């Protein structure tokens, strides 16, 4: 072992890279809540909503304007509830708006060095409050799964 080869070994090890520091894409993060829209007259069948405006309480930006029969919305970390204003635009000049408050607790699971922890939400009891002023469009809400551990199937059904 000459001093020269020692230096070489040292320099080689200094510049070795690690992929450790990047959280790989596709790592499942904190799951969003998946809402399924259903027909209140015929509970078996899905019913689409059109131009549903979704805004978080206290947020200036809208989450999305949505048309379809199921949507994933993020829940609020480190808070006991998440509240959204769900406004359905109709042909009539009056807006049909509901304010949905979802109550939840959470637990966090360690993934790895780069991704850190992911949160898993669990519905609290009661799992929602419908704080609607005036006329709303939501007729009933049903809990489909207790734990929001993944985004593979719906967690909540809204009948309208």
């Amino acid at each position, binding site marked *: *072992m000459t*001093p020269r080869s*020692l*230096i070489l*070994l*040292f320099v080689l*090890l*200094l510049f070795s890279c*690690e*992929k*450790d*520091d990047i*959280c790989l894409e596709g*790592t499942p*993060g*904190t799951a*969003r809540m998946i809402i399924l829209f259903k027909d209140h007259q015929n509970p078996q069948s899905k019913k689409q909503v059109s131009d549903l405006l979704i805004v*978080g309480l206290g*947020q200036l*930006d809208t*989450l999305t304007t949505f048309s379809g029969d199921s949507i994933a919305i*993020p*829940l*609020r*970390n*480190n*808070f006991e509830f*998440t509240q959204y204003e769900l406004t359905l635009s109709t042909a009539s000049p009056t807006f049909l708006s509901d304010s949905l408050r979802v109550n939840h607790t959470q*637990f*966090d*699971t*360690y*993934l*790895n*060095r*780069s*991704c*850190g*922890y*992911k*949160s898993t939400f669990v519905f609290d009891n009661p799992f929602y409050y419908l704080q609607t002023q005036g006329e709303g469009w939501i007729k009933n809400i049903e809990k489909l799964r207790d734990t929001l551990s993944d985004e593979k199937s719906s967690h909540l059904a809204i009948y309208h």
Partner: protein
Amino acid sequence: MKKVHIWLSIISLIFTVSWVNAQEVAEENNTRETLKAEEVIDSLQKREKKPYTIRFGIDLSKPIMAQLNKDFFGLELVGDIRLFSELYGAIELGNEIKTQQSERINFTTSGSYLKFGFDYNMYKNWKGMNNAIYLGMRLCNSFHKQEVNEYEPYQLDHYWNTEIIKQGPEIREQDALQARWLEIIAGIKVKMFNNIYMGFSFRLNRLMNDTLPDNFDNLHIPGFNKKTDENVWGAGFNYTITYAIPVML
């Protein structure tokens, strides 16, 4: 911070290496001159008794790093003893407290470690000198604890502001953790003056096993340093100043 460590270690390495080189050149000239004289008394040459030195001291890099980084405290005591002609028994005893920000987690690791093993010197010394370029191995064990200070949960959606969690069930300290690993060492020890030696060693660590904290990982292990997710290898160095007590047997 990392850059400072790297520069410190490079500078210290260059110093010690050039010292050893200088000695080697001087040695060549010297042997040529003394060759004739040696030949005459060759038949009378006796086996030289080497002193059984005991050396002890500290790792200088840790107090320096502690000065540069307020989130770090470290102390390492080192010692070695010559067992056979070129074989030394060696020991390192250390303590560390380190707070650091990983990608999304801020955590503090604190604890002690013990390393013991041997060094084998491969450098031919002048008579009476005791410098070394050596390879060595250590068996190491740490006793540490991990504390999560705060973390940011991994979220793909950023509609709501991402909250940094500062209290909750995961913000806690977990103790009674251990790790065991092997170190392969390459290093040098050079006599500076009287009985004071300086040394530098580079260490390649191989983790054998570690007790994991519940719902967390040993992202840093005292003595082992950074533990990566992909493999069981780590690296380290030390930069020592030691005092030698010569014991003639």
